């Protein structure tokens, strides 16, 4: 496999984490335009821990996930009182605040004779754990792929459990769910924390793949894409967001059929899917039909 194919597959896998985090909130009935903030929290936290404090990457990833979960929980506490578009706007505002905080963050130390660490708008260079441990791009793709497979397996397990049914119930009709004794607020806060942890895991993996991050990596475009992938792919199964990423990055981007006009095609695709299939290509009805056909 050449470097380009490895790069595209790694990007697909990395995007899938943030798309799955947006999907998790969507099935709980909330549309977030702010998942890029927690992706950024994971990227900065993981990078700081491995680069400035020499933590091993797995431990740094766990810490970054915990921080992402806490960060999104804290954002969700006040914003989950809002509904629909108001919640979406509040998450976007929180994400922009996070991006500005990244721009203001200067946390540098001398490592091996060179200054390293976040330097505001200049970004954070030299996140070299992968490089220093001799992990080749193909091996890193394997690591990211295995982690994504584990996350997917966890999603599929949850979706077939009582918790999965509760989540969908809360997402489809929170009032009805509350009337049968489900603590809707508690479920949504838990979902928000899990989505934050998942986005942060994607962020820490992205930072170490790229070796460089900057605040602009975590702006609105990333949030819009993560949401669009979940909406295009479908809300019937966790494979939906992956299908969305594959359609955009795997087909439109890697074939480069449309060159610079790809974003116009992608925008059109989002509009068409939202009009004709508001819950995505793999919506609940399609997934049910596929299950009946193949079981």
């Amino acid at each position, binding site marked *: 496999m050449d*470097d*380009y194919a490895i*790069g*595209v597959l790694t*990007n697909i896998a*990395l*995007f899938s984490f943030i798309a799955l985090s947006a999907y998790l909130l969507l099935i709980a009935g909330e549309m977030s335009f702010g998942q890029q903030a927690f992706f950024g929290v994971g990227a900065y936290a993981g990078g700081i821990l491995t680069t400035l404090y020499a933590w091993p990457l797995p431990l740094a990833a766990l810490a970054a996930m915990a921080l992402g979960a806490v960060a999104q929980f804290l954002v969700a506490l006040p914003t989950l009182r809002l509904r629909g578009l108001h919640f979406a706007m509040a998450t976007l505002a929180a994400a922009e605040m996070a991006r500005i905080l990244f721009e203001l963050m200067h946390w540098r130390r001398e490592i*091996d*004779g*060179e200054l390293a660490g976040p330097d505001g*708008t*200049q970004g954070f*260079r*030299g996140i*070299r754990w992968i*490089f220093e441990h001799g992990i080749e791009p193909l091996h890193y793709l394997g690591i990211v792929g295995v982690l994504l497979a584990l996350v997917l397996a966890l999603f599929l397990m949850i979706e077939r459990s009582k918790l999965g049914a509760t989540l969908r119930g809360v997402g489809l009709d929170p009032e009805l769910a509350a009337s049968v004794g489900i603590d809707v607020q508690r479920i949504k806060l838990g979902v928000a924390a899990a989505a934050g942890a998942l986005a942060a895991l994607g962020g820490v993996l*992205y930072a170490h793949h*790229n*070796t*460089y991050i*900057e605040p*602009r*990596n975590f*702006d609105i*475009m*990333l949030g819009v*894409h993560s949401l669009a992938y979940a909406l295009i792919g479908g809300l019937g199964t966790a494979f939906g967001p992956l299908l969305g990423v594959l359609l*955009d*990055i795997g087909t439109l*981007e*890697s074939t*480069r059929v449309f*060159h*610079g006009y*790809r974003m116009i095609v992608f925008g059109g695709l989002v509009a068409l899917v939202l009009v004709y299939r508001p819950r995505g290509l793999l919506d609940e009805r399609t997934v049910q039909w596929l299950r009946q056909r193949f079981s």
Partner: protein
Amino acid sequence: MAKAALLLIVLALPLLAQAQTPEAQLRCESTGQDFVYDCTLMLTRFGRPLEGAQVTVGADMPSMPMAHSVRPARARPGLKPGEYKARLDLEMLGEWAIKLRLDGPVRDLLVLHYEFDSKGAMPRKR
């Protein structure tokens, strides 16, 4: 013997204090074809030209990470020491993070930020 070793260490200290990470300077000119640039790269380490490196040049857009992958180009050695040449086929004008993957005498990954216009590229100013 011990004094000689100490002297060597003292003399080597300024060298050790210098950045070990190679430094790179990029100059790109448009080929006349949309978004295609011929780039010349100068690599130095410890202030001296870095020769014999295998350099792969890739690019990504900072404002939309992961979504605009550019097929990495293998750079070929130029005429001067430390000089390498590569052709970049970008997707659009604007700011790109140029990623240099070095193998050979030095293994590293450098990221440079350049603003590409219809004529060529300039380092990004903040």
